[in-house]
């Protein structure tokens, strides 16, 4: 499985904030996505019917999840009836083994890939390379990322943080092309290099945007045409799909194809939609002779099991919550440390990978609620974030990630707040201990208390008043006097 670097969240976000070039790219792109989405919804539907569509989509996805075993069985039967193979992989390792086995059985040397987030989870490129099989990403953004040896920066715009100069440098290095500032030229370079791969490749790997249970149809949503190439040119087609990608009926696609592109890029529809449910017919002119659909769990069961988190699996990966998130808009995608970033990344990463490693992610939000308002399947992201925060603080030992110091502190706090005498005692102690660090009425740093020093490193804490209210009351106020020196500082 792809390495989880979410423990570095704070450090990585700091780096992103200081990167001026990145800040510029983020401002520009996010503004573009947000504006395009608002315009197309306004011109095509208006708020009211958009809202009704979101409600219906959320209900369909939720009901599919509640009956997921039933629908997965239905997909399996449909695809096999179409002549395709279906696999069920518990984790990344199993999924990798399945793909590798298909590749080896067929003597595959080159694999062309059209965008698949699941394959990013699996880290399959490394596995293939290790076996001497060349994986080639064909989505332009993914291709750039692959040449740079990075992970996607954004679900639908993987290379948005790269400038044309950087892309040109990468192409010079890897494709031996001439340097250029012309974006059109750069696209032509990539197109020509990839054309060769399309002609050579024996196997195509794609993701799936939707998998229709009743017909066994996998629906791919693309703009470049690489999805069509991947499903047309090679002899074998393998689909990697998260097990939550199922929708029950082919007619449901009308709704989801209206929601997805508008939410993602503000397009009415993408340039291409590919629908594939099995191998070519013998009478067809071209197309893969073998079709393999691999369903992947890889931590999704943890989300399904938790009744509060379950709705996170409704996600159709449109990226709207990223584009509208004030935190993502500043730190971008890499800081989140795994495949998924932004609000959706913050809710799925801890459950799918490791709560302790990803413990900072649920806090990477102001809880402003914009993500929830734009989500085409109405996932209540703020609520799920709070649920995760609760788990981080209080979950069972396997999930809890608080340190013993924090727990000690909170325990003491708890007992103090329940008993007046204890509270006064502790407050007096605090007054004594913080006095040396108080400047202008604020506690600036508490170096001796590791459990709170992280907190005070970036925040000032109002210093305790020299005399407590209880003392004031006892000494002066109780008998009707006015305090001698008010709220003294």
């Amino acid at each position: 499985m792809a390495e989880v670097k979410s423990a570095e969240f704070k450090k990585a976000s700091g780096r992103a904030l200081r990167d001026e070039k990145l800040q510029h790219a983020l401002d520009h792109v996010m503004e573009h996505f947000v504006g395009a989405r608002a315009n197309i919804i306004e011109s095509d539907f208006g708020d009211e019917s958009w809202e009704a569509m979101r409600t219906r989509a959320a209900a369909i996805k939720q009901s599919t999840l509640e009956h997921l075993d039933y629908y997965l069985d239905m997909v399996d039967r449909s695809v096999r009836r179409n002549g395709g193979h279906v696999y069920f992989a518990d984790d990344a390792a199993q999924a990798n083994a399945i793909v590798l086995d298909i590749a080896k059985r067929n003597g595959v040397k080159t694999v062309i890939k059209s965008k698949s987030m699941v394959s990013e989870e699996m880290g399959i490129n490394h596995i293939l390379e290790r076996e001497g099989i060349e994986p080639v990403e064909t989505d332009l953004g993914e291709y750039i990322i692959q040449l740079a040896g990075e992970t996607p920066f954004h679900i639908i715009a993987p290379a948005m943080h790269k400038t044309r100069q950087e892309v040109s440098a990468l192409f010079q290095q890897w494709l031996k092309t001439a340097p250029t500032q012309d974006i059109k030229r750069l696209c032509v370079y990539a197109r020509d290099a990839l054309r060769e791969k399309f002609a050579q490749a024996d196997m195509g790997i794609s993701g799936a945007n939707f998998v229709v249970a009743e017909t066994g149809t996998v629906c791919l949503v693309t703009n470049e045409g690489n999805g069509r190439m991947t499903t047309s040119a090679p002899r074998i087609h393998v689909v990697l799909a998260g097990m939550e990608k199922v929708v029950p009926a082919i007619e449901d696609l009308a709704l989801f194809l209206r929601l997805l592109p508008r939410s993602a890029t503000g397009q009415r529809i993408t340039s291409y939609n590919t629908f594939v449910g099995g191998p070519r017919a013998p009478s067809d002119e071209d197309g893969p002779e073998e079709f393999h659909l691999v369903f992947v769990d890889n931590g999704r069961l943890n989300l399904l099991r938790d009744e509060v988190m379950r709705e996170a699996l409704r996600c159709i990966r449109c990226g709207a919550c990223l584009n509208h998130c004030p935190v993502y808009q500043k730190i971008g995608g890499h800081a989140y440390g795994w495949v998924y970033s932004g609000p959706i990344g913050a809710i799925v990463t801890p459950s799918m990978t490791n709560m302790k490693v990803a413990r900072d992610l649920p806090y990477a939000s102001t809880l402003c609620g914009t993500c929830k308002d734009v989500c085409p399947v109405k996932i209540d992201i703020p609520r799920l974030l709070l649920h995760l925060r609760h788990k981080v603080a209080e979950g069972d030992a396997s999930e809890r990630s608080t340190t013993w110091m924090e727990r000690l502190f909170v325990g003491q706090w708890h007992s103090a707040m329940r008993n007046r005498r204890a509270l006064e005692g502790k407050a007096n102690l605090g007054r004594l201990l913080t006095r040396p660090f108080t400047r202008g009425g604020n506690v600036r740093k508490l170096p001796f208390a590791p459990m709170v020093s992280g907190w005070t490193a970036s925040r000032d804490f109002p210093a305790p008043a020299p005399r407590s209210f209880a003392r004031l009351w006892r000494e002066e106020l109780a008998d009707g006097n006015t305090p001698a020196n008010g709220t003294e500082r």
Partner: protein
Amino acid sequence: MSPTPEEHPNKAAFLLRVRSALGRSEPIVHMPDHPSLKSNAARQQEKVRTVVARNQARRSRTLDRLARTAAAASWNVRRASDAEEAASIVAEIAHDAGVKSLVRSAEDIFKRVDIDGSLRSVGVSPAILASGRSRGRGMLRDMAFRADMGVTGVSYAIAETASCAVIPRRGVARLASLAPPRLVLLIEPEQVLESLDDFFAITRLNRMQARGRTANYFNFISGPSRTADIEQTLTIGVHGPGEVHMVILG
């Protein structure tokens, strides 16, 4: 047709885990309540009858709408009053673009719209991209990749999104509408539908009536191949055709 592939050995255990994560011990026997799954072939047929009637009644308005949405999605839209005019429009497009090698599908529409004749009159001789004529995967692929222009018909055109549904089959190669940098699609008025809903209702019925013996593969083509992956700058024509033409008969 080859036998149905076998069930994956991990399927039963996998589904069991899913079921217990959902807090159930038994599999579901009755289909969950989902309106678009429940309708049987007879009811679906009834539904499609109304869809077809509505589309017939509103045809000329829908054609206008298609022309509008298509233009907005960067299609070059041409409307022809008859087959002869359509054929000469195709020749004109090829001529203007200086096309040297052109591939077309083998479809019935070319019996009505004689593009072979009109193209020859401007000095282009179209090749048919279909087995019989190009032996083997490699040859067909080479031919498609070398061509400057592809011409095919469509199965449906959807006015809502300016999407052309292209269903590859005998005579219609997948690569014909994908590999050449220029694409011309010929659309007949009866093929035009108002909405995505109409298209999927018909697709579902076709499938039910054919008992699964329908195409495993089809595409919507809804505009030129595009990317904005470098600096969010829109660039046309990456892996698919960058120049797309819709020739509507009517």
